[in-house]
């Protein structure tokens, strides 16, 4: 499988400057791509467009040449920076896993999720523990691409290493496509097979269309 963004342009409002202009990007299954670029440059926006959370004004996102499915289970799953926002605070953790049908021994074991966490509420777990659930939730059978939007930025170094090790193992075993946004160049080097600088593929500022 291959996911491809073709000539994507995006702005939040007609009177606002373009954030992304004519961005083309493509990721193969089994590839691990790092997306780097300065803060506020549209990395997260691009990721949200590629995973179908936002509609680009121009251009299209294609999965094997077909548009992304609008309804039903998405083969592209996004993991957010703040796990506490991505989990319903009124749900016990068991239900979070059940929501995606990932309440399964092997996944929990692979990600180091302990049994007694399952009966707790999100506020009773730490950020690193919650992020494991977010990863586990995204790793169901239909997933082909995982997008990690600064997934480990809020975590301490040891937890970061743990989560990435577990994640890489899964990604490699199942040959998932991975797109990660990070400000940590060393992490990107370690994890990725290819690094894309958004500055180089984003065409704002040309033809007088740019910001400002």
């Amino acid at each position, binding site marked *: 499988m291959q996911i491809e963004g073709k000539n994507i342009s995006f702005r939040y409002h007609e009177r606002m400057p373009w954030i992304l202009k004519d961005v083309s990007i493509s990721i193969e299954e089994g590839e691990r791509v790092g997306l780097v670029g300065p803060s506020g440059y549209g990395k997260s926006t691009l990721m949200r467009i590629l*995973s179908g959370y936002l509609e680009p004004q121009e251009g299209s996102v294609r999965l094997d040449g077909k548009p992304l499915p609008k309804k039903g289970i998405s083969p592209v799953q996004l993991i*957010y920076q703040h796990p506490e*926002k*991505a989990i319903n*605070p009124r749900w016990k953790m068991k239900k979070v896993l059940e*929501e*995606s049908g990932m309440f399964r021994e092997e996944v929990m074991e692979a990600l180091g999720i302990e049994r007694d966490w399952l009966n707790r509420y999100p506020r009773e777990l730490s950020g690193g523990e919650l992020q494991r659930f977010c990863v586990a939730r995204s790793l169901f059978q239909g997933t082909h691409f995982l997008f990690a939007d600064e997934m480990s930025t809020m975590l301490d170094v040891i937890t970061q290493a743990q989560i990435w090790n577990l994640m890489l193992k899964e990604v490699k075993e199942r040959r998932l496509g991975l797109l990660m946004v990070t400000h940590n160049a060393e992490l990107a080097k370690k994890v990725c097979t290819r690094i894309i600088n958004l500055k180089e593929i984003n065409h704002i500022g040309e033809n007088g269309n740019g910001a400002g």
Partner: protein
Amino acid sequence: MNLNRRTKMIVFVGVIFAVLAAVYLAGLFISDDFIAADFSQKGLKPSWEHPFGTDMLGRDMLARTMKGLSVSIIVGTVASTVSAVIALIVGVAAASGVSWLDHFVNWMIDLVMGIPHTVLLILISFACGKGLKGVLIGVAITHWTGLARIIRSEVLQIRSQQYIEVSRKLGHSSRWITVHHILPHMVPQFLIGLILMFPHAIMHESSLTFLGFGLPPEQPAIGIILSESMQYLSAGMWWLAFFPGLMLVIIVLLFDRLGENLKKIMDPYSAHE
């Protein structure tokens, strides 16, 4: 005894609830013999035998007040439950993302809120044939607006959360998300809104009845008692209005306390601390 604030609050809420239930049951089980006319006892001042005095027909005012409050509590319960359910449905529908529906609901809310409340109540109650039915319908379909607004904005806020987006990408339908993600978040708002609607409903029932557009005169309702007592106030029979009025205020305040304390208990941010 060393109780934390949460436990104290729960005990407090339990006590209030018990008092209200007791008033309701007392009114229900007091036999009609106690409020039978007895002209040998008419117009008595409050005494040990008749703590609230008797009226010009010699009926015991304590028994009448209890019966009246019981009716008020039923009207309050039914009317505010119906109102709260309307508010929940309307609020969730308005926030479902369908733009014309949202506009329509907001227009309805403005319309109902824009008409002076008592006038609207009188009109509806009158159109529905007065009596218990008229009062119930009138109170039920005029009190949902405030809560509907709160629920609408709550739902809008929840809908924009990341976990809703994630749920959608995990293949769940709008209905599944509404039932599993959104409605559980509405439970505290709904219950508190419901209980805080009680005082309004009871007050409006009494005022409608007082004005003569509500319950029929033979029903022992607080509004009836108060409007009858007006005729005798100038004759110095203050107890006819004072005790029933005071009891009404106490019941209303108890409901208000109950709601406020439940709000503190159910506040989602302190629920698991």
